[in-house]
């Protein structure tokens, strides 16, 4: 007979995610990452290496970056969790970090992007005007397999500029143009 690895029953868990309380009945050892993805359907949080190295699953817990693949959903009870879905600006449009990653091509396949964005959001909140060296240090715990990181550093610095209300373009290559038409513009 196999040992019972289910931890003896299921528990009701309530976690505040992006400002909204969510409840689900889960195994006590349900990972926060699986809880977000599979129980709440918040699939913006991605699972990459599954043991805390790559940082793709990073979410903010009470504002601090945490690996959601190394945390149980029950441990997140009574805490405020912010995922990539919760990073939009006050007006519902893209937040500064999100805008910067779009403009500076700070992503390719996009799988690592949510983890970078949550990490960078917390970093810039605490360090609004980082040097390039500080920016590199801040995101050195996250892995990206596509970009070679150059545009991610540019994105962090650009996000700091946007937060400060400066209008300069993305350092290095010029900033891109929006691909979506402005609201209300007809085709043709």
């Amino acid at each position, binding site marked *: 007979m196999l040992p019972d690895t289910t931890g003896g029953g299921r528990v009701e868990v309530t976690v505040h995610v992006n400002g909204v309380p969510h409840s689900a009945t889960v195994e006590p050892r349900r990972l926060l990452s699986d809880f977000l993805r599979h129980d709440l359907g918040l699939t913006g949080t991605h699972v990459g290496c599954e043991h805390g190295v790559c940082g793709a699953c990073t979410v903010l817990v009470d504002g601090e970056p945490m690996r959601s693949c190394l945390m149980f959903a029950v441990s997140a009870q009574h805490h405020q969790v912010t995922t990539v879905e919760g990073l939009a600006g006050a007006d519902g449009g893209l937040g500064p970090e999100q805008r910067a990653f779009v403009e500076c091509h700070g992503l390719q396949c996009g799988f690592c992007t949510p983890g970078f964005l949550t990490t960078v959001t917390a970093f810039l909140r605490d360090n609004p005007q980082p040097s390039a060296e500080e920016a590199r240090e801040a995101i050195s715990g996250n892995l990206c397999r596509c970009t070679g990181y150059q545009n991610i550093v540019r994105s962090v610095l650009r996000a700091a500029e946007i937060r400060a209300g400066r209008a300069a373009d993305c350092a290095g290559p010029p900033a891109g143009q929006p691909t979506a038409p402005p609201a209300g513009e007809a085709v*043709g």
Partner: protein
Amino acid sequence: MSALSERPANPVVGETVPHESAALHVTGRALYTDDLVARTRDLLHGYPVQAPHAHARVTRLDTAPALAVPGVVRVLTAEDVPGVNDAGIKHDEPLFPSEVMYFGHAVCWVLGETLEAARLGALAVEVDYEPLPSVVTVREAIEAGSFQGAQPTMERGDVEAGLARAEHVFSGEFEFAGQEHFYLETHASIAQVDENGQVFVQSSTQHPTETQDIVAHVLGLHAHEVTVQCLRMGGGFGGKEMQPHGYAAVAALGATLTGRPVRVRLNRTQDITMTGKRHGFHATWRVGFDAEGRLQALDATLTSDGGWSLDLSEPVLARALCHIDNAYWIPDVRVNGRISKTNKTSQTAFRGFGGPQGMLVLEDILGRCAPLLGIDPADLRRRNFYTEGQATPYGQPVRHPDRAVAAWDQVVQTGDVDSRRREIAAFNAAHQHTKRALAITPVKFGISFNLTAFNQAGALVHVYKDGSVLINHGGTEMGQGLHTKMLQVAATTLGVPLHFVRLAPTRTDKVPNTSATAASSGADLNGGAVKNACEQIRERLAQVAGGRLGVPPADVRFEGGRVRGLAHDTDEIRWADLVTQAYFQRVQLWAAGFYRTEGLHWDSTVFRGEPFKYFAYGVAAAEVEVDGFTGAYRTRRVDIVHDVGDSLSPLVDLGQIEGGFVQGAGWLTLEDLRWDESDRPTRGRLATQAASTYKLPSFSEMPEEFNVALLEKAHEEGAVYGSKAVGEPPLMLAFSVREALRQAAAAFGPPGTSVDLASPATPEAVFWAVEQARARAAEHGHVAEGFPGMVPPQPNGDVPRYHPRSERPPAEQHALSAEV
């Protein structure tokens, strides 16, 4: 300028635009295959039973205990397969094997209501194994004569005569490691069956058509009964070119047997222990130089570590042979290739597809021989460049060799290479325990699939009555920006703003018979097809517009969503108005596009031809600093000039160059695959099966200064809008880092020291190179000097030398019979 390459006025191609899905990615709305789980009702989860032996016979498989586990619905075994029990196209990789061929091989799959139920079910399956002798390393395979597939020879001239006339002959041996793809999104497939029996598979696949083919043959269906869609991939790098098929087939088999959607998503441990990697290689070689250091002859035998089945090993080997020359003219050449059969994962495509491995052999030779010739390595490389009129060993004229020179000169100039080399010499003279070095290396990489038939593509373009455009093409998006480029191509050809055009996910029921998104050729091939479809529509619209504007159709111009005559003072029509008018005139507003790369031919029976449409060039200079006590090093600066033709999308292309270089540097310096080579029961187990033990490039390994420029005046006649492919070639720019490390290690010895450097050149490997430089200073490393030298093993004639099965039209294809 060709019709294919010519750009209209104010084209959207060449503009700097963000990735087409960027807004979705930064908000978490972009969907990957496994994100569909939360959106799919009644889904079952698949979990493999992995064998704990490198090689064994399955003597008993009892699934009954698994079925007793709560939540387990079914166990899939070989008996369940209605069609062909094989996950590949060469019928050498059974999907449900009776013989375990590598440690971690899945022998059956358990379906559960939850992933946890499936996992517990997999633990409950009882399997008895009879362990068999195993071959784990490529050296063991060579000694045992364990090979698979064809053993080609690429030959030009008389290699013995070339070596005999050479002033210097060296010979040696080199073995280097493969590479794990470590795409951040692991393999994932979700399959379901509709009310009419149509199988629909969503898969993270670079090759939806082949996934469709394999699913069909496993299920005993025809291709039109299976549809495969790929929304996007979280990285592919070649690892999802052939490897997804079996997992998709397991999901599809489960869906057909249970009537419920089935998800097969490998967790990271499963992905890294079950799926194939870049081939490591072993090489034995002899090389001849004249008195001036010009290459005279190369005699080499390359043995790739193929793993347990062929997969893509034959074409990977072909590309390795075709790239051993890199950018260098070698008059007399004989290169043999063979594929070892080892009890490991089935090694597969990985960015460069053998090209990097072939080139690494020669770059290693040049790096080791330069000190023995008394020639600076940069001079040795530069003086051996191809010049106009010369051809590769397989007979293809080398077009635009001057671009390698231009890129080299630009790197030397903008990288201040000469003055920095003086600074480095001064630094090294002043520092006993720390040494620096700068190396500069070129890349010449052939673009097109080696096999000519694969160089075709299709597209489907719809213009709706309101003027909006929807495009679909056969290529898949894995982050490389292909979809972004295709949107730009369509907007350019139709002369509309970019936001008029949308792109729908890649599906086999939209565009059939596609080639893999691979060989860097995604934009070349699919761009040609999108352009062709758009041109058909544009020509029909020009008829309508010509009539309304009173100008000949050939004089109608489409630009920025406006349509006018050639003369600037004619009337203008809004694009959407013209489209509406055309609809009422009953003009077809959609088109299927097709593209085939012209001018290619390749005869694998003699290993000759012109398989490549063109060559992509690039040059990199890298400066490193090595600590003599530990071998630890850092990359101080990298300068790159790379040839992308006239860029379709500069931001995308720069990102590909930077990312490719870093991935190459990872392969060559960090990423250390270790298999258990002992005789313990864990023999054959991958020891580095997680990101904690398999070191991927991170910020701390990035060059402190990293300058990347696109080569100017680089128009390419033979490709869409004058562009060149960019996916793979930049990976090989990372040779500069490896050669710089070698030179820095050698600087710990006296001038003229040749050191061997293991690959990957981890700090430990560099430490041993430093030790070698200090201790064996007067010797030649492990390079032997003199003719005839160590002659590489030659084929003995008992295996086919040429024309691998994979390059022949399949005779046994599951063709539609008359009674269907």
